[in-house]
């Protein structure tokens, strides 16, 4: 079993850099795989496209999913994750700028495990990232592999 990979689905390189910085500052050293749009995320998860040949049985420990993504948006990605037997139990945290009520409702309806709005203030951003990492990577017991 791969050592607790974090799949970060994020199209903005600055957010990517800040999130990784925040993770590292919180002493979370897990491998972070970055998918820059919805298609790439799905390819990674199902071993298709650019990731063909990847063992799709190897699931990430946590998926950080932005909503506003090129090609296939975050909600569509979530829907596909939940629809597939291989991925339906994966913890998915929506990590996004939006706090529109509709986004929250749709995300939870599609089976998101958590919804965190990215704070503007970096100290709060850091705190949020740290808590997420601690909770989902350390405290939380994932579903056993089938």
């Amino acid at each position, binding site marked *: 079993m791969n050592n607790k990979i974090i799949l970060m689905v994020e199209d903005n390189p*600055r957010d990517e850099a800040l999130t990784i910085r925040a993770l590292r500052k919180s002493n979370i050293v897990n491998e972070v795989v970055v998918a820059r749009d919805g298609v790439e995320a799905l390819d990674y998860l199902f071993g298709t496209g650019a990731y063909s040949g990847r063992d799709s049985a190897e699931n990430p420990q946590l998926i950080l999913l932005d909503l506003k993504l090129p090609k296939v948006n975050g909600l569509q990605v979530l829907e596909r994750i939940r629809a597939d037997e291989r991925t339906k139990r994966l913890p998915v945290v929506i990590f*996004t*700028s939006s706090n*529109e009520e509709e986004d929250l409702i749709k995300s939870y309806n599609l089976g998101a495990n958590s919804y965190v709005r*990215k704070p*503007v*203030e*970096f*100290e709060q*951003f850091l705190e949020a990232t740290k808590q997420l990492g601690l909770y989902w990577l350390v405290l939380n017991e994932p579903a056993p592999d089938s």
Partner: protein
Amino acid sequence: MSRKKLPPEQRSRLDRQEQNSHNAANYPSADQETATESQSRLAGIIDSAIDAIITINAQHRILVFNRAAEKMFLCSAAEAIGQPLDRFLPERFRPSHSSHIQGFSQTGVSSRAMAGARSVFGQRTNGEEFPIEASISQVETGGQKLFTVIMRDVTERERAEERFRQLIETLKEQTKILDLAPVLIQDLNARIVFWNTGAEQMYGWKAEEVLEKTSLSVFKTEFPRPVEEIKARLFARGHWEGELVHTRRDGEQIVVASHWVLHRDENNNPKAILQINNDITERRRAEQEVRRLNEELEQRVADRTAELQAANKELEAFSYSVSHDLRAPLRHINGFSQALLEDCNDLLDETGKEYLREVRSATQEMAQLIDDVLQLARVSRSELHREVVDLSDLAEKIIAKLKARDSTRQAKVVLEEGLTGAGDKRLLGIVLENLLGNAWKFTSKRTITKITLRGNLQDGEHVYSIEDNGAGFDMAFADKLFGTFQRLHRADEFEGTGIGLATVQRIIHRHGGRVWAEGSPEGAKFYFSLPTRKDVRHE
């Protein structure tokens, strides 16, 4: 009606009459009967006659005065007999009357109607004149000439005749009025057989131009449905009503409201069709105009609605984009400023570090501003879900959050219990968040924060107040309080975006309530009202 036998008292009256006369009347007698029997029967006939019968002698003295005469002249026979006939004529007729009888006497004619029957008048003993129809006859018996006048009171008949004359006048009037309506009659072959003045005026043809022609050839009629169908209906029901298009003599097409009535002969066979046609072209034109304007209006409303929906959608997309995309760069500016502070700490002097902190603080303010503007936009367009909201409970939760964020603050918060209001729970939550948040903010410099929430019913609406002992405000600027981006305090005194109270006002206005405030250096008191709604159900 005629009595066969005369009651005894009448018989005696007639007998008395005879005795009173100087010369007993000689009634014709049948050979088979005795003179008495014959006389008595005759007397009975005379007395039971409907007409007044008066017999006079050559000197115009009354010899016989029957019962009808008594009634007519209001005079008993006893009184009348022996009197001159003149007595029962109006004064003015008396002289001519005598000569008339004289003249009649000389003609030798046995009987004739008097004076064309029309101009003869009688006079009752009470002086009343009345029209009579009279005939006179003469007989000579025993060398004496007797005249018998038979009279009928025609007052009633004349009255009836007068009424009839009036009726005819009225009918003539009505016929004239009817002439204003275009009426025509066509036979069953659709040939026009009657054409009145009204039709002439409306269509422009004189009767002689259209009679015997078919109405179709004259009017070039356009029927709303097959003419056979119309005729079938006419024959089934006896009438038909509908709209036709006719062409007038001048070539102009008119819309007529046509009313057809089927005439049948005495054997119930269809004979002719009466048509009354009214020109309703103008009315139709006006109606069409109204319809057209209505359609135009509906189209315009639909267009505007579509435009509005499109604008709304665009606004939503815009808001979403603002919330999502505008925040991201702020987060990056903030995050990388922090990274700079941490990673390049040695390269920056205190001033440089201070500048970076200002940059970070500015991004926070802008983020708050974005959130507030978005909230203001959202409260304006979100749907209202009205219910009974427990405001005391909402307020308590908000105060708990404020206290948790600022645990060192000494605060005395009094929230009246059981306050409810009818409205959208989420939006009223935003109202309380803003008002209580403001109270909390503006009391931050007091040793002890005092905040009080109260509510009461005033003139049919719920009025709530939130009072604090904070910085207050100058009442001179009270009208600016609820304006968007309006601030009454300097940013270095109290932070804020100037959107909170505008949001409060918009929410309360959407609920049909009012919002106002009182301020002094000792604090502020904000009021808002909500209409009481009986139709709001409790949860």
